[in-house]
């Protein structure tokens, strides 16, 4: 069974009198352990689809199963608990909590799970080392470069050992060298940990690393290609 099974997902946005169809019946299947890219131009529905799969948003219609759960039937609190256990997020603008140190940012999600301070700090330090930031645990986000912050975001996404990491334009704010380095890191983590990655991007760098590329256009899947 696929880790993500989306069928005929539709989503509209209304802004005043204007209505926009963001997803127009998207169906998608992502297997466990995949390293998949959602490609498409701006406005194609990549972020909307990622948000829906990440249970941050709800579609008007369609069915969606993530990690064996019908996530569209969950309440807001259940969705939050589901995200905490099953999904890691990497955002375009890093989105670290700026009053927390790198270690605390990574440990934050485990704190939400009620893991003891000693245990979560140990996990955070190990993950920071894994993403190449060994010894930088005490630094605040504003003391780190964009690439380093995005690596912390990746470490944070992995802290709860989720089934899937959803990354929304993770290289958009990085230079090509840093972006390449980040993609190699995520690919390596995918291979070593078996964590599924679903990455929305129109960056050719991302698409080059992906083993499966799903092309979206005008809210529809145009092509689903595996490398």
């Amino acid at each position: 069974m696929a880790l993500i099974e989306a069928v005929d997902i539709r989503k509209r946005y209304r802004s005043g009198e204007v209505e926009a169809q963001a997803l127009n019946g998207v169906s998608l299947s992502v297997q466990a352990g995949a390293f998949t890219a959602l490609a498409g131009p701006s406005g194609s529905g990549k972020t909307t689809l990622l948000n829906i799969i990440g249970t941050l948003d709800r579609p008007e219609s369609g069915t969606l199963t993530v990690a064996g759960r019908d996530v569209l039937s969950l309440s807001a609190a259940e969705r939050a608990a589901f995200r905490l256990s099953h999904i890691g997020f990497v955002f375009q603008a890093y989105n670290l909590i700026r009053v927390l140190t790198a270690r605390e940012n990574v440990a934050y999600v485990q704190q939400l799970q009620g893991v003891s301070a000693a245990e979560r700090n140990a996990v955070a330090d190990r993950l920071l080392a894994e993403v190449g930031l060994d010894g930088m645990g005490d630094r605040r986000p504003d003391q780190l470069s964009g690439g380093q912050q995005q690596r912390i975001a990746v470490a944070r996404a992995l802290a709860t050992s989720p089934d899937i990491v959803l990354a929304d334009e993770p290289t958009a704010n990085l230079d090509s060298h840093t972006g390449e380095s980040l993609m190699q890191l995520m690919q390596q983590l995918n291979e070593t940990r078996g964590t599924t990655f679903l990455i929305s991007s129109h960056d050719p760098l991302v698409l080059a690393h992906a083993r499966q590329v799903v092309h979206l256009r005008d809210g529809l899947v145009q092509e689903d290609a595996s490398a």
Partner: protein
Amino acid sequence: MIFQLAWRNVLRNARRSLITIAAIAIGLAALLFLWGFNDGVHNSMMRNLQQAIIGSVQIHADGYFRHPKLSRDLPDVQRVEDLLIKLGVQQYTRRIRTFALAAGDDNSEGLVLLGVDPVREVRVTNLHTKVSRGRFVSPGDGNTCVLGATTARNLGLTLGDDLVLLAADRFGALAADRFTLVGIVESGEMGIDRGLVVVPLASLDAMLGMQGRMTDIIVQSPPDKLEALTAALKQGLNGQGDAHAYEILRWYDMYPMMKQWVDLENAFYYIFLGVVLLIVAAGVMNTVLMSTLERMHEFGIMLALGCGGWRLAALVGLESVLLGLAGSALGLVVGLSLVGIFHHLGIDLSSQMDSITRFYINPVIHPEIDTDHLLITLASVLLAALLASLVPAWRAARLQPVEAIHHV
């Protein structure tokens, strides 16, 4: 970590937080000082009333207070005094109290006639300190008396003059005796300066044929032990078969008006407290709301990561409580310091009221704060800070992750 996170968020905009903390501190310090002034006035009034003449508790034969007849003397004075000793009470004294007609050279006047034990009385009340001319009645005195200044003036008496007192004795027969005026009391209280004559207990006992019988036992008690002492006296004197042989009355059972007045003034202060708390709450809410609006995006991220809405609300509430705690700590130090300094220095209002006590209020006020007022005010400020966070916390709890993340 939620505490760390909340504290760092408070420090995030340090200037705004400091202004809010300062506003809370100033509000609390002002409230504490006002309570200190208020309690200083009230407590000194109540102390003065009790120490002037009536004591904290009076013990009589049942029904004596409303119908003071000498035939209603205390059933067993020794038993009462033994119980007081057993309860650890040291300040108590015996009295005989009745009404008398006082006749001077020119005039006559109805008075409360009080026979006091000169040795014990001075340990229990401070009437002797109010003697402005002459002296108080002393051990070994014969028929001496002390009068209030107004009464002495009305009767046309000066020190050394004789005063004739006529009163019904224990059997209802008219008794009369002559007393020499040795002291004049000027207390500033109408009920003492006018309408009271104090004579030695032994002289009055002989005049009225009391044969060692007493009508009153007057007890002084610290305010915090008053209720327990009263309960113990009631239990000890009325609780064993001889139900209601004695009446045990607290000062405010006998003279409720002052307590009612104090309660009324306190009620006004509570209204004032409420107004100040509203201002404090508005200040805290403004800060927390601003801080919440500024962090909508971050809240969205936290929600996306799996933080529940109510956990987010708790964070917002905790930030508000931290502001409240910091402001309260500062306000507590400043407020209590002000109360302490002015308690030591005193606030001299003699230019406004007079140089002597009037209505039991001392012309120099020494602020002091009652523990219950301190705790209520402190708790109210903290509660106001917490309540002020309800709206921002509620908004945070209801945030939708996607909308919050896209909030700029």
